[in-house]
């Protein structure tokens, strides 16, 4: 009976990152129908253990049993976890921002849609139902684009999406309420209680102890990767939990010998009721000789505090922040903010010195070597030579190099951004000594730390809460629980009233391009009424068509975050093939065209397989396409078969052939992107990891994108042939870059999968309209290119201004 109750049992789990033991021989069990609260300070290992249980990372040793079945811990993946009914709502959201709410439901829950005929309807119903289930009365529109939702609403979508899994057995919620307003938090808690009663297990990670007291059945307190305490909720209270989390940290180091260095008043930072975007009413004075720690729960303004100081120090207008002294910054996230991976230890050490000297002053090699050797020697960086790559070092030694960088530049104020993260204990102690020595030399050290044990090494500490200094303590004049109390107590009061307010309505991406097109068209119409007639539109279409087909093709590629430099050349080649091979031998011509399309699609697979930059692959292929075309036909000419000419010029009473094809292809491209698989392809353009985790094949996605793009480029080549009746290798070579411009004018971005076909078409039309307008204005056609260039710059500048407004909100 007891065994049946247990859903997941992990024993003796060990996970080591370099020198850090993230999870230290931990035993944990989670029962069916139980809400287990996982609490602990920063870096206690809560996230790591949940990642292990959900298959995101594999543990180094230990055993996991799920539902009575032992798991191979080396091969356990997220896909396996999903099959077992284990889902996670991570702190960092795993949604595709370029899709709508219901499309996000689809890409993760696609197994539910195999048999559905109208997947959009089903997905909308599913999304609506899931959201209403968890958050009754929510105002989220399932048709809305995810990027139009607030962070709180996105969080709600992510939670609701996880709960919509039909065979959900266990759900891990990592800080689910950190951005939710009170009412929604209550709704979530009610939902959890209700479903837990039906047998679903919950792991609930939160810093909000009140919530835990209300919600949880059992509490599991972690510290330094180990279990600190485990008890039923009835056996504990908030006070008790805070004490248990805290005790043991301070006491080990209490006896530390600590001489407070003398103050150096020449170096100082003064803030008087200072506020910025994410800091509120901070008043503080800091002087040389001090080591000031910033602590508090993650995300309460510590990072913003130090970055504000660093960036403001370089600006003339400091907005009332007074900084006396040179500032250097030591990044803790070495990969993201610190290392230059292609460089040696020496170069990595000396860059700040160089950056501070005159741009074209030659280096003093001897001086450089002296500094590098002195500081890496002082810090005892373990390496055979400073010419070795920084990437050959362990994390702790990489960190030493970054600290040597700040020391070598001889800054007065040294900002440390959690520099001991992932560093072994011995190195940590060495670093503390270095920091202390620097303070003794009159430097001011501002130290953001996520390891509470380090607070013992500072002369003063600020506890940050909600973007301000919640409390300030002198060295040795506080108990650790005082800090935790300040850090935790204000969390529930976070002002989240605004969290659910609707964001200002954003214009559609293609709006600027559409407006530009309409304006240009209207002006042309006023100048020459024929433009407005059906005949006029048809004539225009003949001019536009190949370019628009090409733009549709490029849209798919840019939607994936790539750029295709070969599309114009490919179109030219198709054009040449139709006027040569196809004309001589239809069957063989068709065969060649199919081979070309296959070759084009394979570019996608090649990029996936070799993981090479798409821009170079397509650049290389553009030479190849042009080369083949030249071999087939070195002078413009040839003869396009009658049937192909007729295909684009067939007589009918409604519209001319080319315009009909154009409309068909535009609609087709939009439909492809709206289809089931097209939705997944768009998702790939935004969040590859999320799509891969949901089980979509990356190779297939790359291949399909290039295949589809190839089809449209081919259509462009056909149109070229149909219109001109002959071929010219270079006729479409300018299209390559023009289509990139068209996609960007049409509201697209190079990354994030933000493109629209309609926008690209508008962009393409406005670029060509420019030449027609100039012709009508009797302006020399020579100016066409200039005006196109200016239109490009102006539209993108307007977009920047609009974006700036959005960011300020």
């Amino acid at each position: 009976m007891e065994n049946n109750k247990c859903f997941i049992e992990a024993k003796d789990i060990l996970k080591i990152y370099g020198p850090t033991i993230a999870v230290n021989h931990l035993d944990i069990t989670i029962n069916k129908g139980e809400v287990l609260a996982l609490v602990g300070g920063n870096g206690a290992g809560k996230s790591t253990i949940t990642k292990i249980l959900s298959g995101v990372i594999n543990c180094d040793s230990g055993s996991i049993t799920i539902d009575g079945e032992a798991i191979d811990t080396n091969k356990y993946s997220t896909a396996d976890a999903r099959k077992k009914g284990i889902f996670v709502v991570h702190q960092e959201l795993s949604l595709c921002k370029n899709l709508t709410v219901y499309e996000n439901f689809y890409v993760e829950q696609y197994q539910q849609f195999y048999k559905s005929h109208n997947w959009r309807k089903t997905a909308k119903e599913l999304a609506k139902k899931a959201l209403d289930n968890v958050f009754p009365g929510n105002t989220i529109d399932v048709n809305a684009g995810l990027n139009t939702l607030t962070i709180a609403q996105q969080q709600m979508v992510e939670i609701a999406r996880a709960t919509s899994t039909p065979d959900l057995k266990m759900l891990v919620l990592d800080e689910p309420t950190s951005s939710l307003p009170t009412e929604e938090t209550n709704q979530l808690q009610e939902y959890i209680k209700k479903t837990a009663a039906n047998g679903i297990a919950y792991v609930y990670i939160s810093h909000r102890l009140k919530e835990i007291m209300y919600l949880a059945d059992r509490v599991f307190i972690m510290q330094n990767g180990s279990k600190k305490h485990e008890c039923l909720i009835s056996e504990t209270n908030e006070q008790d939990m805070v004490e248990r989390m805290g005790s043991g940290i301070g006491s080990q180091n209490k006896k530390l010998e600590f001489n407070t260095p003398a103050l150096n008043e020449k170096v100082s930072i003064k803030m008087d009721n200072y506020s910025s975007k994410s800091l509120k009413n901070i008043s503080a004075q800091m002087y040389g000789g001090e080591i000031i720690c910033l602590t508090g729960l993650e995300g309460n303004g510590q990072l913003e505090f130090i970055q504000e100081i660093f960036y403001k120090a370089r600006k003339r207008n400091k907005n009332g922040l007074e900084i006396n002294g040179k500032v250097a910054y030591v990044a803790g996230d070495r990969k993201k903010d610190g290392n230059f991976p292609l460089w040696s230890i020496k170069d990595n050490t000396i860059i700040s010195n160089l950056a501070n000297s005159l741009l074209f002053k030659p280096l003093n090699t001897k001086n450089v070597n002296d500094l590098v050797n002195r500081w890496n020697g002082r810090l005892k960086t373990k390496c055979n030579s400073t010419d070795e790559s920084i990437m050959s070092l362990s994390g702790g030694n990489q960190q030493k190099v970054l600290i040597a960088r700040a020391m070598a530049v001889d800054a007065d104020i040294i900002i440390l951004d959690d520099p001991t993260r992932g560093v072994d204990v011995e190195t940590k102690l060495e670093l503390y000594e270095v920091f202390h020595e620097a303070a003794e030399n009159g430097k001011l050290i501002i130290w953001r730390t996520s390891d509470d044990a380090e607070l013992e090494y500072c002369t003063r500490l600020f506890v940050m809460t909600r973007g301000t200094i919640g409390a300030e303590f002198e060295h040795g004049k506080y108990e650790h629980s005082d800090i935790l109390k300040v850090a935790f107590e204000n969390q529930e009061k976070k002002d989240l009233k605004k969290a659910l307010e609707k964001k200002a309505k954003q214009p559609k991406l293609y709006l600027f391009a559409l407006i530009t097109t309409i304006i240009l068209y209207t002006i042309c119409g006023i100048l020459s009424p024929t433009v407005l007639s059906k005949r006029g539109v048809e004539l225009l279409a003949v001019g536009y068509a190949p370019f628009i087909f090409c733009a549709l093709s490029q849209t798919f590629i840019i939607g994936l975050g790539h750029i295709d430099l070969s599309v114009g050349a490919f179109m030219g080649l198709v054009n040449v093939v139709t006027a040569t091979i196809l004309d001589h031998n239809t069957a063989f011509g068709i065969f060649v065209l199919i081979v070309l399309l296959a070759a084009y699609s394979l570019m996608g697979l090649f990029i996936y397989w070799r993981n090479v930059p798409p821009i170079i692959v397509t650049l290389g292929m553009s030479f190849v396409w042009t080369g083949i075309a030249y071999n087939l036909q070195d002078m413009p000419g040839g003869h396009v078969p009658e049937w192909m000419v007729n295909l684009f010029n067939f007589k009918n009473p409604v519209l001319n052939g080319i315009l009909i094809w154009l409309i068909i292809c535009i609609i087709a491209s939009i439909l492809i992107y709206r289809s089931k698989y097209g939705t997944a392809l768009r998702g790939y353009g935004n969040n590859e990891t999320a799509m891969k985790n949901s089980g979509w094949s990356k190779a297939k996605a790359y291949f399909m994108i290039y295949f589809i793009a190839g089809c449209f480029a081919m259509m462009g080549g056909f149109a070229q042939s149909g219109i001109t009746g002959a071929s010219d290798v270079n006729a479409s070579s300018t299209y390559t870059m023009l289509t990139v411009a068209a996609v960007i004018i049409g509201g697209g971005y190079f990354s994030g999968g933000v493109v629209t076909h309609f926008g690209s078409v508008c962009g393409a039309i406005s670029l060509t309209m420019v030449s027609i307008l100039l012709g009508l204005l009797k302006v020399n056609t020579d100016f066409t290119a200039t005006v196109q260039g200016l239109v490009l710059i102006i539209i993108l500048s307007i977009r920047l201004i609009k974006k700036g407004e959005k960011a300020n909100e």
Partner: protein
Amino acid sequence: MNKALSYIKENTWIWALIGSTILWLAMGISSGQLGFSSLISNANTAAFLAIMAFGQMLVVTSGRGAIDLSIPGVLTLMAFISMSIINGKNSMIVPAFIAVIAICAAIGFINSLMVIYLQIPAIIATMAMNYILTTAALLINKHFSIFTVAPVLKAFLKGKIFGIYFSIILVILLGVFFWFLLRKTSYGKSLLALGQNKNAASLAGVKTARVEMVTYILCSVLTGIAGILVSARVGSAVLGMGDTYTMDTVASIVIGGTLISGGRANVPGTLVGCLFLGLISAAMQVIGCSVGAQNIAKGALIILVLMLGTFQKKSAK
């Protein structure tokens, strides 16, 4: 031995150098005249490409997918402007150089403003600039009929020391200069840092905006100087004379081992890359290959070199 191997792995342009040697030998044997003269005349042609390739190398090294697409526009326009100013007179050469450098510096400056402050992606900003410059060239072309080259320029282009053209020596000197710039100056190191990781560079105190500005200005100025020399060599300025150079500069630096994603530049590689591209065309002309076949070979080689580069990365892991 191991050291040599690892050097080859890090410098993929060695393959291009070996390729160039083979091409040169093959050409010499097939034409029956094995000698340095064919190599030198090819190097002379490649020299003009190399001047621009250095500029492109700097822009690409600044990272985040930056490529300067305004090279053809700058080259063509500066060819027209310099021809117009010089008009066959020796005395006007210096003023022409001053004018070209000043105009190009302005062009590069505007490019960098668009990239840094308007946050327009570099390839779009420079493409827009290219359109504008192309128009300017078109306008000048209408009233343009100069086909005389200043004697000093002519002499410079034909002049040799120890059988080596002045232009080759100029390019080698430029190469030494850029090698020094990238390795031994604050600008060079800052540029390489910026290209690897803009965020880290900025936190390390690199003045990113200033470095980017200098980069775009250098690229335009170099292209402008190439414009003067190319027009003097051709004997006039022609519309579209710069069109092939964008792709050729990118191809040559990629063959030379410069990372397209930024942060690593290779000066000797760029030189070899330019020579190699030139030799391919020359060799294929000798054996009677069409323009088409030359293109195919060029494209295939770019992809091949790229693959060699990634093999090296995989084995490093």
